[in-house]
C-alpha cells in the first residue's frame, strides 16, 4: 500500500478498485502509530476511522453514490470544530472541550465522504509560527526532528509531509498555513479572504484569518478548494465564487503573465540559500514564458508590527469568552470572588497567549490607540492600496514564503521579536485579503524552502495555475522519515 499518493491519485485508485478505503485507512493509522511518537503531529486520532472507511467501501460495492473524497484520510487542525470531537486549540483551557457543531468546511468535506483521521497540533489558539507554543508539546519537522515544522498549523504540515494523512485543513492568520507548508515541503494555501467560511473555526483574529488546505500537490489543493469554498450564510464575510472549478484548466501555463518580485521580501536578513532558491524559481517562471521584474511595496517593512497590533487586539477580545464559566476546564468555583476566579482560571493559558492578550489590552487602550492600533489600521489600508496598485501592473507577485530556513526547536522561543520577523513575507496577504500559496521548491542542507506566489483578490484560479506551473519545474527528494 503506497501511502505517498496524492489526493487525486487516491480517488482514482479507490474508484478503480485498486485499493479499498478501509485498507488505506488502516495503513494510515498504522503509519501514525509508527511515526507520530517522534513527530507529535496528532493531538487525537479518530478511533472510528477504519469503520467509517469500511462503510464507504460498502457504499461503493453496493453502487450507492459516494462523495468525491471516497473516504480520503484528512487531518484537521485542532481549532476547527468537528461535532462531538475534542477541539482543544492546543490549550489547557479547552483540554476537554467537545465541539457541539461542525465547521462549515467540515460539513462540506463530510458531504463528500472525507474521513477525519484525527485532530492535529498547533500553537495554542494559533498564536505562533513554530508549534512550540502548543500546551501539549511541539511538533517536529519530519525533515529533521530537531527543527521546528513551522506554525501555527505545524501538525497539519507534519501529518501531510510524513504521510500520516493525504491532506489537512489548517488556518492562516499571518502565514500559519504557508509557513509550515514551506518548512515541511507541502503546498500551503491561504485563499482570498471570504472564499472559505470561518464558521466553526475558533476565532483568533477574525478580520484576517482563513481556513486553508495543506496538501502534497497543487492539484490536490484545487480539489479541496472546490469542495470547501463558497458562500455560507453562517459567515457573512464569505463571498460568492460562482462555483468556480479550481481544478479545470489548472495546466494552462503562465505564458505572457507578468510577475512582480517584491523587493522588500528579498532584502536584508534573507538566508542566502533561500535567496538562491527564489532566483531559481524566478528563472524557471521566465523560462515558462512569464516576465518578472521588481516591484516595491513600501509598507511591507511596517506590516509585521501592524499585523501583531491588529491580531493582538482582536485576540484580546475573542479570548475574553474563556472565563471558565462558559468555556473551560474543571476548576471549582467555591471560595472565589467572580473576578479573581476568572483570573485564576485563565492561568491555564500558555505564556504566548497571555503575552498577546496583554498586548491586545494595551495597544487599543485609551491613550495608546492612536500610537498603535489606529496606526496599524492605517498601515493596513496603505498596504492594501499599494498591492492593489501593483496588481494593475502584475498578474502575480513572488517572494520566498519565509526568508530563512527552518530553525532548531528552542532556538528563537525566547526572542519574540526575532520570531515576529519570520512572518515578514506572509502577513501581507492576510492584511490585504489576497490569496497566497507556498509551493515546495527546494531542499537545502536537508531542509525545505517554499516559494510564495500571491494574486489579486478572487484570482485564486490564476494563482493555482501559476503554482502548478512552478511545481512542475522541480522534482524534490522524499521526506527522510
Amino acid at each position, binding site marked *: 500500500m503506497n501511502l505517498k499518493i496524492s489526493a487525486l491519485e487516491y480517488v482514482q485508485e479507490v474508484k478503480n478498485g485498486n485499493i479499498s478505503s478501509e485498507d488505506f485507512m488502516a495503513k494510515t493509522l498504522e503509519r501514525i502509530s509508527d511515526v507520530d511518537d517522534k513527530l507529535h503531529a496528532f493531538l487525537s486520532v479518530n478511533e472510528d476511522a477504519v469503520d467509517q472507511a469500511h462503510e464507504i467501501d460498502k457504499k461503493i460495492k453496493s453502487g450507492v453514490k459516494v462523495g468525491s473524497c471516497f473516504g480520503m484520510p484528512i487531518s484537521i487542525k485542532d481549532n476547527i470544530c468537528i461535532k462531538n470531537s475534542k477541539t482543544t486549540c492546543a490549550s489547557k483551557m479547552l483540554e476537554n472541550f467537545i465541539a457541539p457543531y461542525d465547521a462549515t468546511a467540515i460539513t462540506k468535506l463530510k458531504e463528500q465522504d472525507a474521513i477525519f483521521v484525527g485532530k492535529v497540533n498547533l500553537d495554542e489558539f494559533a498564536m505562533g509560527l513554530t508549534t512550540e507554543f502548543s500546551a501539549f508539546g511541539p511538533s517536529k519537522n519530519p525533515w529533521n526532528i530537531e527543527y521546528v515544522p513551522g506554525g501555527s498549523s505545524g501538525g497539519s504540515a507534519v501529518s501531510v509531509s510524513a504521510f500520516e494523512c493525504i491532506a489537512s485543513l489548517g488556518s492562516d492568520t499571518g502565514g500559519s498555513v504557508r509557513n509550515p507548508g514551506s518548512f515541511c515541503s507541502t503546498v500551503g494555501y491561504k485563499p482570498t479572504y471570504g472564499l472559505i467560511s470561518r464558521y466553526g473555526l475558533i476565532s483568533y483574529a477574525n478580520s484576517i484569518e482563513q481556513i486553508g488546505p495543506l496538501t502534497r500537490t497543487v492539484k490536490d489543493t484545487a480539489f479541496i478548494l472546490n469542495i470547501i469554498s463558497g458562500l455560507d450564510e453562517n459567515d457573512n464575510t464569505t463571498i460568492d465564487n460562482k462555483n468556480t472549478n479550481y481544478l479545470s484548466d489548472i495546466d494552462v501555463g503562465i505564458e505572457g503573465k507578468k510577475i512582480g518580485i517584491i523587493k522588500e521580501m528579498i532584502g536584508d536578513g534573507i538566508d542566502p540559500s533561500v535567496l538562491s532558491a527564489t532566483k531559481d524559481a524566478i528563472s524557471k517562471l521566465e523560462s515558462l514564458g512569464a516576465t518578472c521584474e521588481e516591484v516595491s511595496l513600501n509598507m511591507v517593512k511596517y506590516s509585521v508590527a501592524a499585523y501583531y497590533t491588529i491580531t493582538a487586539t482582536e485576540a484580546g477580545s475573542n479570548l475574553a469568552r474563556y472565563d471558565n464559566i462558559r468555556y473551560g476546564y474543571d476548576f471549582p468555583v467555591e471560595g472565589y470572588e467572580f473576578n479573581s476566579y476568572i483570573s485564576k482560571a485563565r492561568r491555564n493559558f500558555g505564556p504566548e497567549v497571555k503575552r498577546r492578550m496583554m*498586548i491586545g489590552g494595551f495597544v487599543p487602550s485609551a491613550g495608546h490607540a492612536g500610537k498603535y492600533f489606529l496606526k496599524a489600521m492605517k498601515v*493596513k489600508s496603505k498596504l492594501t492600496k499599494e498591492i492593489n496598485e501593483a496588481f494593475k501592473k502584475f498578474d502575480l507577485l513572488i517572494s520566498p514564503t519565509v526568508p530563512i530556513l527552518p530553525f532548531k526547536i528552542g532556538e528563537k522561543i525566547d526572542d519574540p*521579536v526575532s520570531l515576529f520577523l519570520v512572518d515578514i513575507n506572509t502577513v501581507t496577504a492576510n492584511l490585504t485579503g489576497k490569496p497566497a500559496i507556498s509551493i515546495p521548491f527546494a531542499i537545502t542542507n536537508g531542509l525545505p524552502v517554499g516559494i510564495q506566489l500571491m494574486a489579486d483578490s478572487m484570482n485564486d484560479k490564476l494563482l493555482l495555475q501559476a503554482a502548478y506551473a512552478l511545481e512542475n519545474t522541480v522534482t524534490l527528494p522524499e521526506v527522510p522519515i
Partner: protein
Amino acid sequence: MVTQEEITRVSKLMKIEIDDHREYVDKVKKMIGYFDVLDSAGVESEEISMPEIQISSLREDKHIPFSDKLIEKINHYKGTYIHAPKMSS
C-alpha cells in the same frame, strides 16, 4: 516607552494572573517596543478603509433552534442554574 506599571494594569484588566512577573513584563515591553516602528510609517494622513456589507446581504435575523441543549455543556450547569463565583459588592 511602556512602563511596568502600565503592563501590570493591563494584565489586571485582561484578567491574567502571572507568576514570573519580570519575564513577562520584559517580553511584553520588548514586543510593544518593536511596534514603535509604526511611528515612521508616515501614515498619519491615511484613511482607514473598512469593508462594507449591505444589510440586505445579511441572512434573515430569525431564531433557528439548535438540536442539542448547549447549556448542558457548561461545566458548572446544575440542572436549573449555572453555579458561578459570587460577585463582590
